């Protein structure tokens, strides 16, 4: 796949560098809102929309934004998109807005968005940045919906609000509580690591392991230390 092409960016965001399962970014909303599949989906799509738009705009403005004030500029742009998203949700999807609560405004400090702005959009063209945002956003959505679906299924016996488990099934309440989020996230991460490692072993090398979950070992992107800014 050609590097930085639209397709490569989508593949990168959804699978190779999935923000939740591989990069382990944005854990706070991941753990908090995934009490049901619908909540995960709503949170994921809202973040994806903000991420794609902020990536596009930052990439377009990258020649204009001076290096020294880039972080405040990014935050203003991201915060504006988040506020717009929140106003629109409040006006047209009030139920979802209520379910997601405080986590919508907190998208502003979601380190996936600031991370992609800094690591990708600020140094790449608008088209690949847009697709990078969409790819990362979809990867995040997929992960959140997956975690939400598993938690909802085990914790209430339903999936997307539809009863799946037989009526004899006693819901395991802990899965919709906070600890359940950790269990499910760990299990799904392990599962995808197992699949990934088997794939690369059969291909004859550990080279194609993505970045192995640690950005510091990744030679492709400029290493940035987000520890100072990551508030999520």
């Amino acid at each position: 796949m050609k590097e930085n092409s639209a397709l490569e960016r989508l593949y990168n965001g959804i699978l190779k560098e999935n923000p939740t399962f591989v990069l382990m970014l944005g854990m706070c909303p991941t753990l908090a809102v995934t009490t049901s599949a619908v909540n995960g989906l709503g949170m994921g799509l809202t973040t994806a929309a903000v991420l794609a738009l902020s990536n596009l705009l930052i990439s377009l403005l990258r020649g204009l934004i001076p290096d020294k004030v880039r972080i405040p500029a990014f935050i203003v742009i991201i915060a504006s998109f988040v506020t717009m998203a929140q106003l629109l949700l409040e006006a047209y999807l009030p139920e979802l807005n209520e379910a997601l609560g405080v986590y919508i405004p907190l998208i502003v400090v979601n380190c996936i968005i600031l991370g992609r702005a800094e690591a990708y959009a600020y140094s790449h063209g608008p088209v690949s940045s847009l697709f990078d945002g969409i790819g990362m956003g979809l990867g995040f959505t997929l992960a959140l919906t997956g975690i939400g679906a598993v938690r909802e299924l085990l914790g209430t016996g339903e999936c997307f609000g539809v009863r799946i488990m037989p009526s004899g099934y006693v819901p395991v309440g802990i899965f919709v509580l906070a600890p359940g989020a950790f269990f499910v996230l760990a299990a799904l991460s392990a599962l995808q690591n197992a699949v990934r490692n088997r794939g690369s072993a059969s291909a004859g090398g550990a080279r194609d392991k993505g970045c192995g979950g640690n950005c510091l070992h990744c030679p492709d992107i400029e290493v940035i230390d987000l520890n100072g800014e990551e508030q999520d």
Partner: protein
Amino acid sequence: MKNKEERKQLWKNAGILFAITLTAGILLGFVHELTLEPIARQQERRIQRACGAVFADAASFEKEEGTGETPVILENAEIGEVYRALSVNGGLLGYVITVTTSEGYGGDIELLLGVRPDGTVNGVSVLQISETPGLGMRAEEVLAPQFAGRQVSSFTYVKTGAVSEDQIDAISGATITTSAFTEAVNAGLSYFDERLKEAE
């Protein structure tokens, strides 16, 4: 010389950042203007729907003048807006009282209490709750229906099965929620006794 150059750079950076924030502010203003009306409509619909849940036979709800602006604190709970439930021909069916308590296990519980003019509880519904899922979160399905149709001055909760009119079955494992919920209903009833009953 270098100093001057640096200062120029500083002004330029500040200018660009200012331009970005200004543009963002203007755009936000537009979106805010655009969504102002739909948001107000949603709010209105939410209140009407919530009030309808405690007074199913009422045709409309009218806000009682002067309520909700300064919250009244009664028995650890806060009384907010009060609405009059009106029938089709405008007759008074009762009152809907907004009660907020912060005594819950996971943040504020906001509920609506429907009271008939004679003091009988017509219904209780939950506006906002963030208790433990599976335990306190069941307040709406377990606790709320128990109050309806009873005429007492205050409720107490029991864990061994309610026997008398003023007793409520607690949710097992969620005593804090049950206590907060019952107290909130009691606060609403006291408010009704003090401020609304004599108006009849």
